[in-house]
């Protein structure tokens, strides 16, 4: 047995100050189990000790927000007495160690966060960042992650309807796997985690406990290095079949009045769920570990309290409903065990084999958790990009961009995800800027998207944070939905480095500005720090700062949602101002091999004005297709619409005074393409609303005809667009 001292505490990730604080709370040397409990509860992952001061600055309220951050997931009112419940969560480090299981258990974990609140999950999304396609490891990681996301989501029967993927060398040793789940519940049947009722039984349901992932929560908070190999035995294996049973059993129980409080066992399993439930309810909790269903023999209290075995939930139940509840879990062939009860002591007391293994006062465990305002250092403002020449011409640049890793068709990926199960998927991946699912037995539609442009955040974190929020809002708007709220997944490097903390603080400031300007509050989220790789020479490389934004919007009538596919014989109109911003653009990266300059600026007032106008036009029925402009700029956006609609266009664009490559490939923000019958009418309305608008040309044919007269066939574009993933993966 290890002796507990400061040295061991350091191994567990506690600093000397943190350990001193622990000793102050306990008034004695803690037991190993107690040290384990403190170390996970005070880890970055569970305590948000570096991020909390900044997260508090985000706007989290709106009339339609029912529960903001602080619950297992965010809850918003979507009308008709229904609520959407959603959250995004990362599984970055586990996905590097074991891509399949890391990604699969990431999906499993976020599903539990959502159905634990009473929602039936209706959609999954996944925001993925991988290393350079040239890195020999990338292929293996992409393969495992995509199989893992699909393997889990397909089996539980929740459609995977959207996401995003970027490639960049900064993710070589540290991919990002951010999974988002959206569920729907009746507003009067939402379940929370605050325990109540002294004496009430505490029930464990789901899979048995094994030695999986012990210290996963602290691993997620530790920077990545060669030791990763040694940490491998902590890999958790997911069982989506059991998760499916757990969803059905929990929803069946939730239809009764048996549940007082419920929480999934996520990171730090039994510890975090019991401590948080009791802590939130202001009660004590006694656990009897002999009653915990166990998969392995000889497990210690320490191992059981820290195990991250998957597919488990903790429920505080009404004592007179325990038999009925047990019958439901028996029917679904899941373990059900009363493992403790609530007390009035304010302590968590853990007993095992006749001994008290832990006895910790809950209030100071939570209240005195470390909280750091870590030093921040500003990043230098990027030098503006000078005038750029065009070495390849518009045609070749388009073909290059449409086939480049960050723009190429993701069909290879989403073809491995069941996107139709449930029979409610109105817009599948690739068909629209946001996925759209109808809510069964209603006309309501939910629009869902994830967005972030990490290269913008790296160049200007404040602007990049705001841009990610604005792009999510734009993507929801572009299908006709009213954007309601955001979940975020803030993936950054080592917060102990002032530059990284500076990026973090600035990105949050930018996100907050955009959320406020767009009435788009943050209702849930997740922080993942220490995303960096130690190089053989001892230096570390941080990932590009990646605040992934998950956006949710609602449509009164799912049938009014539109997609991006051009319709034949109509006019295409561009809304929003074009200045030809090439700084940080994909054109610059793919054609010149440069990643520099300032990212495109953002005008949040214009953003809102333009988006509100677009949404109103879509809902009036005047728009047959809409696409917002992002990576690759105007011509890439047009090409994407043409490929999706299998209809070409003859571009007939008046001179703009901007050089052609900047005009076609600049990534100016706040712009949309609209396919309409009456271009003149739309442009006139836009002008009256103070929005810049210009006609681009008439749709038809099977190619993109440039103003120069050159035509690029859709077939050529399609071939270039589809080549990247199969070429990388199906070797």
């Amino acid at each position, binding site marked *: 047995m290890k002796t507990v001292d400061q040295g061991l505490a350091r191994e567990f990730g506690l600093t000397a100050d943190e350990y001193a604080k622990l000793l102050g709370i306990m008034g004695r040397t803690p037991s190993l189990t107690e040290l384990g409990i403190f170390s996970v509860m005070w880890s970055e992952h569970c305590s948000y000790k570096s991020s909390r001061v900044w997260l508090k600055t985000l706007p989290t309220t709106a009339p339609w927000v029912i529960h903001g951050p602080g619950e297992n997931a965010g809850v918003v009112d979507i009308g008709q007495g229904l609520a959407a419940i959603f959250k995004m969560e990362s599984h970055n480090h586990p996905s590097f160690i074991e891509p399949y299981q890391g990604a699969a258990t990431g999906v499993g974990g976020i599903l539990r966060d959502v159905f634990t609140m009473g929602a039936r999950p209706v959609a999954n999304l996944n925001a993925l960042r991988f290393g350079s396609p040239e890195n020999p490891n990338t292929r293996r990681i992409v393969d495992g992650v995509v*199989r893992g996301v*699909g*393997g889990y989501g*397909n*089996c*539980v*029967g929740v459609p995977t309807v959207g996401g995003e993927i970027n490639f960049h060398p900064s993710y070589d040793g540290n991919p990002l796997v951010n999974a988002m789940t959206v569920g729907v519940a009746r507003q009067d049947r939402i379940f929370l985690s605050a325990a109540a009722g002294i004496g009430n039984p505490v029930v464990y349901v789901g899979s048995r406990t094994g030695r999986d992932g012990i210290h996963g929560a602290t691993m997620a908070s530790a920077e990545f290095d060669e030791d990763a190999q040694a940490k491998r035995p902590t890999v958790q294996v997911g*069982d*989506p*079949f*059991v998760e*499916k*049973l757990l969803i059905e059993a929990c929803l069946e129980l939730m239809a009764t009045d048996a549940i007082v409080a419920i929480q999934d066992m996520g990171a730090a399993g039994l510890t975090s769920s019991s401590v948080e439930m009791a802590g939130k309810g202001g009660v004590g909790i006694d656990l009897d570990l002999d009653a915990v269903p166990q998969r392995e023999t000889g497990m210690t209290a320490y191992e059981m309290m820290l195990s991250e075995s998957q597919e488990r939930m903790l429920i505080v139940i009404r004592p007179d409903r325990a038999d009925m509840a047990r019958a439901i879990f028996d029917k*679904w*062939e899941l373990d059900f065990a009363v493992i403790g009860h609530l007390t009035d002591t304010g302590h968590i007391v853990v007993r095992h084999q006749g001994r008290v293994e832990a006895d910790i006062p809950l209030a100071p465990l939570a209240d005195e958790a470390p909280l750091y305002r870590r030093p921040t250092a500003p990043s230098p403002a990027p030098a503006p990009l000078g005038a750029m020449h065009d070495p390849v011409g518009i045609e070749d640049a388009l073909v290059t961009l449409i086939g480049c890793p960050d723009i190429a068709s993701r*069909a290879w990926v*989403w*073809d*491995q*995800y*069941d*996107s*139709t*199960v*449930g*029979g*409610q*998927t*109105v817009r*599948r991946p690739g068909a629209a800027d946001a996925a759209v699912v*109808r809510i*069964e037995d209603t006309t309501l539609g939910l629009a869902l998207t994830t967005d972030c442009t990490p290269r913008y955040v790296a160049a200007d974190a404040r602007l990049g944070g705001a841009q990610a929020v604005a792009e999510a809002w734009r993507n929801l708007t572009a299908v006709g939905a009213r954007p309601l709220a955001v979940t975020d997944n803030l993936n950054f490097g080592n917060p102990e480095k002032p530059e990284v903390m500076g990026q973090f603080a600035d990105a949050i400031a930018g996100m907050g500005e955009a959320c406020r300007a767009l009435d788009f509050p943050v209702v849930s989220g997740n922080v993942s720090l220490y995303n960096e790789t130690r190089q053989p020479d001892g230096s570390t490389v941080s990932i590009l700062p990646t605040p992934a934004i998950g956006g949710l919007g609602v449509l009164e009538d*799912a*049938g009014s949602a539109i997609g991006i596919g051009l319709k034949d014989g109509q006019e295409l109109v561009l809304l929003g101002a074009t200045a030809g911003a090439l700084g940080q653009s994909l054109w610059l990266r793919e054609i010149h091999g440069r990643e520099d300059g300032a990212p495109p600026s953002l005008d949040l007032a214009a953003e809102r004005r333009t988006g509100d106008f677009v949404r109103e036009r879509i809902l009036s029925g005047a728009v047959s297709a809409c696409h917002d402009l992002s990576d690759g700029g105007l011509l890439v956006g047009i090409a994407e619409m043409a490929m999706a609609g299998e209809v070409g266009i003859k571009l007939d664009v008046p001179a703009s005074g901007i050089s052609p490559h900047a005009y076609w490939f600049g990534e100016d923000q706040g712009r949309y393409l609209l396919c309409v019958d009456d271009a003149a009418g739309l442009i006139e309305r836009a002008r009256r609303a103070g929005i810049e608008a210009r006609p681009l040309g008439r749709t038809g044919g099977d190619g993109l005809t440039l103003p120069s007269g050159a035509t690029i066939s859709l077939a050529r574009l399609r071939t270039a667009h589809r080549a990247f993933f199969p070429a990388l993966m199906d070797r």
Partner: protein
Amino acid sequence: MKAGIVVFPGTNRERDMAIALKGASGRAPAMLWHRETALPDLDLVVLPGGFSHGDYLRSGAMAAHAPIMRAVRDFAARGGYVLGVCNGFQILTEAQMLPGALLRNAGMRFLSHDCRLRVERADTVFTRGWSQGDQFRAPMAHGDGNYAADPDTLDRLEGEGRVAFRYADGNPNGSARAIAGVFSDDLRICGLMPHPEDLVDPLMGGIDGKPLFDGLVEAFVQ
């Protein structure tokens, strides 16, 4: 039409199937739990898609031994109609109520996209909504849809007109002779891999799958 849908642990397309059946017949199907040993009065039993028992041994293998399968077998023997879609098809082959087996997709990846199916004969209750040779679109979502049987069995199926559907636009999963669905020898049991039930509403992208359900309803009204 009185239809019942069997739900196994891990079944996940029972709701899709219920929507399609109710849409066509106006009547909600009965949901039947795998542990039941007797069926209510029914015209049609449907084994829907999903991952019964996680599909952990072989797809459909464990579900084929569920208590309700004895009742389904008896029901078919008495002249009842049985439809199996995706995992349901796999279960029917594992239960040897349909010939052949479904192996891993040739490309070793889960496949989820629309395919085109050709209707090989239209004089059955399952296909009467189409004409022979018709093609229609259907979403696929499976990892084990690669239909296999020995050459004699395949020849017999072809000879007896027991191929129900064939992939018409390539062969996405490597199935023998591009077979996507088959009938039992009395044409009362039908299994297929793709999901017509997910394409019965224009809002979801089309109604290509509707003739299956409309045809069934017509058949049972008569």
